[in-house]
Each structure stands twice: as structure tokens, then as C-alpha cells.
């Protein structure tokens, strides 16, 4: 019997599999089409103080090996999220997996306030599924949730420190892949008091309709996700793990167990399934089953033994 539980910076996960923010709605949408018992956590779509309309259409384009999107973080504000969405998630999903709530905002104060309200609500029965916060500082598709906070290590450190002051929930920071040295950003998060890191967000990307001579996406540019980004994501997780003891939630092109195990060997503690769920909602459970059988074949008693077990 393989022990599949992992500890992601204080977030106890029964399995090492989460869903990636923005690919799994608010946790309940796939109800009926997959087995939630194999998820260690779900990650809710980005939440800020007030509702946000998102970008104009078109918002996505299928490309070889994945998807370029510029949804633009459309979503309801924190009030609706706490009053309606989280209780609905908990009532729809029997034994609902712990929820990681992805947050973003236009200012450090906004991030802090959203974190404070989530923390307060997490102590209530209705919202007790809320178990961790993931700070999004790396969305390529909105100015505020992206470059302003995620590209400058000093600002990033200020943001993480400010959010840290408002929450005792496990605090995960989701980093951008498009930086010259991930180590600088990892340290900014460590020094700010983060409990864990998640990576990677989508890679900035663009698709052009050559007949119309216009960008395909209304936002002109977007973020690339899916199979094609996976090797790039493994490298970034590997680089980050070498310079930190913080646990890493890895995502980027996980379609099968092999992809997830690469992340674990590179140093990840847990793995999120993202774009693959769109094509196959059962991806997360298939990945889980594959990890367990890998542990059995290789003589690992627990999934956590795989973390960083890459041989020199």
C-alpha cells in the first residue's frame, strides 16, 4: 500500500494531484464526469475583491500541443465566492477535496484584503473547504495580476510579506516562467514568508491569422499551456527546487502519469493537472493511478519519496 499523502507547505493533501487554476472553474463544474476522490486539492479560478469581466472574444486558440488563451481572469468577486460558490462546491461534491483559492488584484492592499477574508471564512463551516491561498503574480493576460507584481523581485517580496501578515493559511505563490533566473523570485517569496511555490503559469504567446493579418486573440497576446510547455516547466521546477526547500506544486502539460512523475523527480511535492482536463476530465485520476503503480514498480513506499529523487 503506497502512502499517497503529501504535505504542501502545511496543506495536507491525500493525493499529490491538484487541478490548476483557471482550468477547473470553481471546483464543481466537472461533477459527474470524474472521480474527485483521487484529487488531493482543487484550485479555484482567480478571485479578487470585485467581479471582473475578463477580455473580449476570441479568448482562445487551439495550437499544436496545446492552447493559447487570454480569458483575462473573468470571475465573481470575493463576496459572491464566499456566499455562494464555496458552499455550492461543498454541497455538490461529496467529501469535497481541500480548495486552494487563487487570488489576484490591482494592488497589494487588494491581495491582502482578499487573503484576509478568505482566512476569516475558512474558519466557518460553510467555507471550511478553503485550505490554502495561491497568489497569482504571473497571469500574462491582465496587467495587474501579471507584470506589476511578478516580474520585480522587490515588489513580489512586498506583496508576499503583506499577504503573509493577513493569513495563517498555507500561502502558495504562483510564479511566471518567463524570467531569466527563477532563483531570484524564489528567494523573494521565501523571504516574504511563503509556504510553497507553484509553477509554471502559462508562457506568453501569440497566434496570428495570416489571411486577416491580425492576431487571433482579441487581447492580441495570450498564454500557452498544454503538452508543449511540459519540458520547459520541468526545467523551471528543477531549477527552483535546487535553490529552495519550499515545496513546489508543479504544473504545465501534465497529460499522463509520466509527466507528473517527471515533475516529482525534478523536485515537486505535488502536481496539478490543467489544460489536459479540458480534453479528458479523467486525466487527474489516470495520473494518480499511474503514480501509484510507478511507486509499486520502483519500490517507493510513499509518493513523497519521489520528490527530488532524480539520480545524478
Amino acid at each position, binding site marked *: 500500500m503506497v502512502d499517497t499523502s503529501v504535505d504542501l507547505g502545511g496543506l495536507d493533501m491525500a493525493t499529490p494531484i491538484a487541478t490548476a487554476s*483557471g482550468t477547473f472553474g470553481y471546483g464543481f*463544474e466537472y461533477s459527474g464526469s470524474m472521480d474527485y476522490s483521487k484529487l488531493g486539492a482543487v484550485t479555484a479560478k482567480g478571485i479578487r475583491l470585485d467581479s471582473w469581466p475578463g477580455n473580449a472574444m476570441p*479568448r482562445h486558440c487551439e495550437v499544436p500541443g496545446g492552447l493559447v488563451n487570454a480569458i483575462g481572469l473573468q470571475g465573481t468577486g470575493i463576496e459572491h465566492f464566499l456566499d455562494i460558490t464555496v458552499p455550492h462546491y461543498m454541497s455538490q461534491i461529496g467529501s469535497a477535496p481541500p480548495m486552494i483559492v487563487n487570488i489576484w488584484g490591482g494592488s497589494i492592499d487588494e491581495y491582502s484584503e482578499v487573503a484576509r477574508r478568505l482566512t476569516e471564512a475558512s474558519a466557518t463551516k460553510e467555507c471550511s473547504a478553503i485550505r490554502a491561498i495561491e497568489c497569482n503574480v504571473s497571469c500574462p493576460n491582465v496587467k495587474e495580476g501579471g507584470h506589476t507584481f511578478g516580474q520585480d523581485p522587490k515588489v513580489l517580496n512586498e506583496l508576499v510579506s503583506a499577504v503573509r501578515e493577513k493569513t495563517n493559511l498555507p500561502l502558495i505563490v504562483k510564479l511566471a516562467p518567463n524570467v531569466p533566473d527563477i532563483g531570484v523570485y524564489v528567494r523573494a517569496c521565501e523571504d516574504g514568508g511563503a509556504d510553497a511555490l507553484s509553477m509554471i503559469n502559462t508562457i506568453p504567446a501569440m497566434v496570428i491569422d495570416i489571411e486577416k493579418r491580425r492576431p487571433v486573440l482579441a487581447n492580441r497576446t495570450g498564454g500557452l499551456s498544454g503538452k508543449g510547455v511540459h519540458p520547459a516547466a520541468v526545467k523551471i521546477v528543477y531549477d527552483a527546487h535546487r535553490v529552495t526547500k519550499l515545496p513546489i506544486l508543479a504544473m504545465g502539460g501534465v*497529460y499522463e502519469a509520466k509527466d507528473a512523475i517527471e515533475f516529482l523527480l525534478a523536485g515537486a511535492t505535488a502536481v496539478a493537472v490543467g489544460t489536459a482536463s479540458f*480534453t*479528458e476530465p479523467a486525466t487527474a485520476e489516470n495520473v494518480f493511478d499511474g503514480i501509484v503503480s510507478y511507486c509499486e514498480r520502483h519500490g517507493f513506499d510513499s509518493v513523497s519519496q519521489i520528490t527530488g529523487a532524480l539520480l545524478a
Partner: protein
Amino acid sequence: MILRCETAKVVEHREIGSGYRYIVFDTPKMAGDMIPGQFVHVKIPSLEASALRRPFSVFDAEEGRVHVLYKTVGRGTAALNSVRTGDSVSVMGPLGHGFPSQCNGVALLVGGGYGVAPLHFLAKRLKAAGHGSIEVFIGGRTKDDLLAVDRFRAMGVGVHLATNDGSEGVKGLVTDPLDDELARIRASDGKFELFACGPDPMLKAVAMRATGTSSRGWISMDRHMICGVGACYACIQKTVRGNSRCCVEGPVFRAEDLVWE
């Protein structure tokens, strides 16, 4: 209604005219729950593993089977062409917000091209519910784009045809015979409801004929989708409530709720 993901055997797949095909999936768990206007989200077997599913509105659902009428328009539908009888295909459904099951007055169904698919399912259900007064208006560029005409006639509903080139029915737009019918209904103070599916300009024209009247209009929007379940927010239609998702708040919207750009 429970969302399901079924591995379905293809029990029929054939060409029914220029570029249009008919495919039937054996989906015993979901077929009985299907409501006209809803769709299924299909994983195309011959595409690469990372390819997105493709949404198809339902032409018919009975005896554990879901019937789809589609046009080959892009990479996904072209790849679907190669699926053979006996192949297994992953089908998700029922998905989306469908047409209402009741109609007050004459049911006026307006379809363009493969947009007749959900209207066929709707007409069949309305008939089964005892609704006597159904008129269907089918439009296309040429007579080759007028689909399922015989199926509607066999059901005993009134059929009105229009083609851009005049190769069959009225030469002009599908709204031409529709307007004649609306004039007749109004002259006798009759009631009606509009149900439409097809290209956007046609939908807008139909929606305008319901907006601001006491009659209701139900418009089925066709948008590229990613997840089909309301998780990704890619298939947005502007409505009076803001940015609505076609896959869950739609694809069928009330005409007066739509905001046209």
C-alpha cells in the same frame, strides 16, 4: 440531469449531402436526459491527445442513442469524418441550457444550415408533448444547405424554405417567409414563440423580431468552446447580465437578453 462522460460506440455515420454528415452515438446513460438545444462534447479519436473536444448540438436522442448532424468546417470535423461504425468515441453530455419544453402559441422554428439540428429535436419533443402548431423555416445558400426537410415533413409540421440563390423555396432570406407567417399570426391576434439556431446574422434578425414584443424568442448560439462545462470562460456571449458562458448559461438564450456587437 447528471453530466456524464461515456465511451460511445458509433452505430451509424454517413454523408447526407455536400459537406454534411450524420453520426449516431450509442450513449445509453445520457441519451434519456438530453433536452433539445443541449449539446455533447466529443473527443475526436484521430486528433492528437492534446486536441480539444468539439461541441455538437443534438439532432435527436432516443433509445439510448444521440444523433448528431454536422458540417465539415475545420480540422476537428474533418478528422471526425474518418470515424467508422463500430469505433469508440468519448462523448460528454448532456451539456448546456436547452430550449424550454413548453410553447405558448405557434412554435416558429427558424434554422440556417446545420442549425436545423436542435430544431429537429425540439419539433419532435413539442409534437410528443401534444403541441399542434409548429412551423419550421429553413434557410441556406443553395438547396444543398436545406437539411432534414423530409424529416420535418414526416413529422407533420409546416415547412417553409428559402435559399439565397433561389434553387429551392423562396429566393432570399429565411426571414422572408418568416415575416409572412408573422404577419398572418398578428392579423389574427395569435400568439407565437420563436426558436432559432444558425449563423449569427440570421439569429440577430430573428431575435429582433421577438425583442420588445410580448412573444418570446429563444436563440441558440454557436461558439468555439474549450471545456463545455462552464469551467474555462472561453465561450462568452455578451448579455444583459454581462459576459455569459455559452456552454452553461447558453447555448440557448432568451432573445431579449442578448447583446449584439
